[in-house]
């Protein structure tokens, strides 16, 4: 292999590494800057409430419908497996634990990244591409405080609420299938669930997961929007990066959190 080809390859690796490190450094500084502007942003609570509406309330349909169907499918699959071992009465607790511990935060997080995260990135990216952020800067208004911080906190606050609703609708979907369709005893369904679900161990840990996922998705979404190349292609790429990056980060973070939270499972 000629030396020039090797040198060219090394140069590309070096340039790529340098770009990645620079971007990582900018992302870290961006995170601190957003947190630094958060007090200022949260003081104008109306801006954050507006973003909770856009990120949270407008995501309700996809979250509620998905939660209902996931719960119903879980009940069908769960009943099929549990009845082989004569444990079909445990359907309620199985569905509840699956939703509260894992599926609620994770699937709601993935849906949130696709619906709200992509919208946040596209909106901020387009504001940048159409000089709206520059115009704000030239009006002595900091876009980090006025645009970025409210969207970030709107996402962080919305995510646990959406995950809770997802799990609630999932449990209700399982009830419809298990009790109303299959004919399990309602008392056993709810009673076993109440006995088998621990508030601290299951519910709180699920909430912690959804808060962490909310932080991850919101931060990636606002960063990608703010850092997007100010062109149609740049905004499009940034939106894709938000969905892919958020989804992979949620799955990776879920594994790490599960290891720390549920040590009793043998890890």
């Amino acid at each position: 292999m000629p030396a020039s080809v090797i040198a060219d390859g090394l140069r590309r690796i070096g340039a790529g590494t340098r770009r990645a490190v620079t971007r990582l450094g900018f992302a870290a500084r961006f995170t601190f800057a957003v947190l630094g502007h958060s007090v200022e942003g949260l003081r104008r609570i109306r801006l954050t409430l507006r973003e909770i509406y856009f990120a949270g309330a407008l995501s309700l349909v996809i979250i509620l419908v998905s939660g209902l169907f996931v719960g119903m499918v879980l009940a069908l699959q769960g009943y099929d497996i549990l009845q082989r071992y004569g444990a079909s009465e445990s359907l309620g607790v199985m569905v509840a634990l699956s939703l509260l511990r894992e599926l609620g935060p994770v699937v709601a997080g993935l849906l949130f990244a696709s619906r709200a995260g992509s919208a946040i990135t596209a909106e901020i990216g387009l504001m940048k591409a159409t000089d709206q952020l520059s115009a704000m800067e030239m009006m002595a208004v900091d876009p980090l405080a006025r645009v970025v911080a409210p969207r970030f906190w709107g996402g962080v606050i919305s995510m646990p609420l959406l995950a809770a609703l997802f799990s609630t609708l999932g449990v209700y979907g399982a009830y419809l299938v298990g009790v109303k369709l299959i004919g399990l005893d309602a008392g056993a369904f709810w009673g076993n669930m109440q006995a088998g679900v621990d508030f601290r161990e299951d519910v709180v840990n699920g909430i912690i997961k959804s808060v962490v996922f909310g932080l991850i998705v919101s931060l990636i979404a606002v960063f990608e929007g703010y850092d997007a190349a100010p062109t149609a292609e740049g905004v499009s790429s940034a939106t894709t990066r938000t969905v892919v990056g958020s989804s992979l980060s949620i799955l990776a973070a879920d594994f790490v959190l599960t290891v720390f939270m549920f040590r009793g499972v043998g890890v």
Partner: protein
Amino acid sequence: MTLSRPVRPSASFDRSHTTAIELDNVTFGYDRTRQVLSGITMSVPRGQVVAIMGGSGCGKTTILRLIGGQLRPSEGRVVVAGRSVPDLDRDGLYALRREIGMLFQFGALFTDMTVFENIAFPLREHTDLSDQMIRDLVLMKLNAVGLRGAAGLVPSALSGGMARRVALARAIALDPMLALYDEPFAGLDPISLGIVGQLIRKLNDALGITSVIVTHDVYESLKIVDYLYFVSAGRIIAQGTPDEVRASTDPFVRQFVDGEADGPVPFHVGAPPLAEEFAVHAG
């Protein structure tokens, strides 16, 4: 775009300074290999309308960004109202920007707000005025640009000319000492173009502000400005009053004013001779 810490705008600027803007031997480049401006020296007296003209990509908008402190020069001085812009801290820079109204190339109106809210935006951000007072001020600004009746519309419902006029009203919402216009005539029909041009002149005189217009529209500019600078490849290559420009024999000015395709600015950009390109040899 830069990252910053939270700020509280503080000191105000001397509006009575006789020279509103001064650029002294300013050089700027995004990196060492790409020089955008070289040795730019210009002076804008208070109360005047000055145009910076040149072809696309010659560095005109960069000059506006240097004046507004969005960019810092590699060398040279940028002085606004007697104060050096690159030396201002974040608070000082924001105080300066509250004294500047800027119109962006395509208006840069906030698309999630109505026309009314767009103009009220700087008032709400920087003043403690009552809603009634803000309403009156916004309607006065809209009246000045002839769009009081469009207060309730959203930007997407406006024509290009109307959007530019709304952006103009927003630029003067805080009664700035300095107005910067980035390509205010781009993409406008002849009627809108004339309206925007006249508004820039009238508002400048009525409000006692100083205006800098970055444009390549030579005919409209000659009608309304007091002085013109011609920029090419990052350098000022000609300047003068509208009468001096009309009478100029400078080849670049003539090519620009007369709209000639070829001249000091070549028609073919950075290409080798045609014969060489197609490997055609004599004989």
